[in-house]
């Protein structure tokens, strides 16, 4: 039984070494898989953000432009002295040079008509201008929003890259477990043991031995028989 001990030691050591290597590789794969999982999640998140941004350019854009038009119109009417987008600027005040003196009824009527028509005209002009300005204002807001998104995506990509590098370094730093290293040592010892025939089980090599029959230097020459 003792004759098999080195072989058993070698086999057990090799097995432990193999299992240790396998577990270390598994650990490395786990680290990289976790990193990949994180990367995939970040990618999904980035994709969602991009798609959310893209959704602003469908039918919603019509609503956005209309809303911006109303906002621009309200601001324009406020600038010219009042009115609401719904009701318009209202009749405009026209101060005639002859208001202080005697004027005809026709004059007053014409002035009142003109005040209303000028109000309508002003509302119309403000509305046209709002239509012209709204797309530009909307595009400015969209440009800032896209810049923000691009920066966010860039930052996420940077974070991703850094974390992937860290995971790679962690994976490279994974060592074989203690039983694997012990197995490697045991395997080496077993191999040496087997090569020498087992500890204490074999004869010591005779430094003087030069042939298998045990002829030594100084011995009388063997007789040769014919």
């Amino acid at each position, binding site marked *: 039984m003792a004759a098999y001990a080195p072989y058993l030691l070698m086999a057990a050591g090799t097995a432990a070494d193999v299992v240790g290597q396998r*577990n270390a590789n*598994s*650990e*490395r794969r786990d*680290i990289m898989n976790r*990193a990949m999982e*994180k990367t995939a999640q970040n990618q999904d998140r980035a994709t969602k*953000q991009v798609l*959310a*941004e893209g959704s602003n350019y469908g039918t919603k854009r019509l609503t956005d432009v209309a809303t911006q038009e109303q906002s621009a119109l309200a*601001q*324009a009417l406020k*600038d*010219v*002295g009042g009115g609401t987008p719904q009701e318009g600027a209202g009749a*405009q*005040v*026209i*101060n*005639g*040079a*002859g*208001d202080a*003196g*005697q*004027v005809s009824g026709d*004059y007053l009527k*014409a*002035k009142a008509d*003109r005040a209303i028509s*000028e109000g309508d*005209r*002003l509302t119309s*002009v*403000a509305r046209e201008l709002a239509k012209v*300005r709204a797309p530009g*204002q909307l595009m*400015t*807001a969209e440009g*800032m*929003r896209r*810049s*923000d*998104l691009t*920066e*966010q995506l860039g*930052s996420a990509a940077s974070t991703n890259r*850094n*974390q992937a*590098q*860290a*995971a790679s370094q*962690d*994976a*490279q*730093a994974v*060592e*074989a*477990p*203690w039983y694997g290293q012990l197995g490697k040592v045991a395997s080496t010892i077993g191999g040496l043991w087997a090569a020498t025939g087992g500890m204490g089980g074999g004869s010591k090599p005779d430094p003087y031995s030069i042939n298998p029959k045990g002829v030594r230097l100084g011995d009388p020459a063997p007789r040769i028989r014919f």
Partner: protein
Amino acid sequence: MGGGGGGDGGYQARQDEIERKKAAARSRLNAMFGVSTAGPAAFSTAGRPGFLNNVGGEVAASLGGSAGGDTTGADEAAANKAARDQLYSQVRDNAFTAGKRGFDEQKTSATRNNKFALFANGLQGGSVDIDQNALLDRTYKQGLLDLGAKADATKADMMGNDEQTRLGLLQSIDAGMDEGSALSSAMNQMKVNSDRATAQAQGTALGDLFGNAGLLYTKNQASQGAQAAGDWWKNYNRGRSTPNTGASGSVYNGRI
């Protein structure tokens, strides 16, 4: 069997810590600019529809921590956003008012001149009076609309510069600028942008719109000018055997 030995995940833990700090710095910087990373509720989309939550908060969430997206951060962001909106509104008002002041003076002058012209021509209290004053008012209102556009541009310029500053600083954080330096730089750049916007607000003038509106007094002035030029021309050519036509350019050299 246990897992592999060694490799304690130290690099990832440290990297996560770095990213967490970056996310916190980004969150604080965003809060300064009125952009909340806590959630959409704290960040009004009135000015910038569809703005997304900052990814820093999401990174922090994925790291299992908070990127400053707490209530305090959201409150700070909301307060800063309100202050910034007020500032933008103020810059627009300043730009509009600065241009309007000069324009009002022009209108007063034009109204007076127009009235004189109407009286001089005996047209007060008639349809021309109404036409002329309606035209004057129309020109004035058109000028106000143009002023509004200029003021809008000033405001948009400032908003764009602030946003550019914010994004640049966020990039700096990603590149490794520490939180303190980023915030200090943000404050300085915001001040520069604000000063620039204020300076621009003083320069929203429209020129003399009434001069080209076709008002009666400008027509009178134009006809008076033409009359004066004609008189001078006649006087210049008086006594000459070959009156200078001025058209060939060979005799008349432009000197008066």
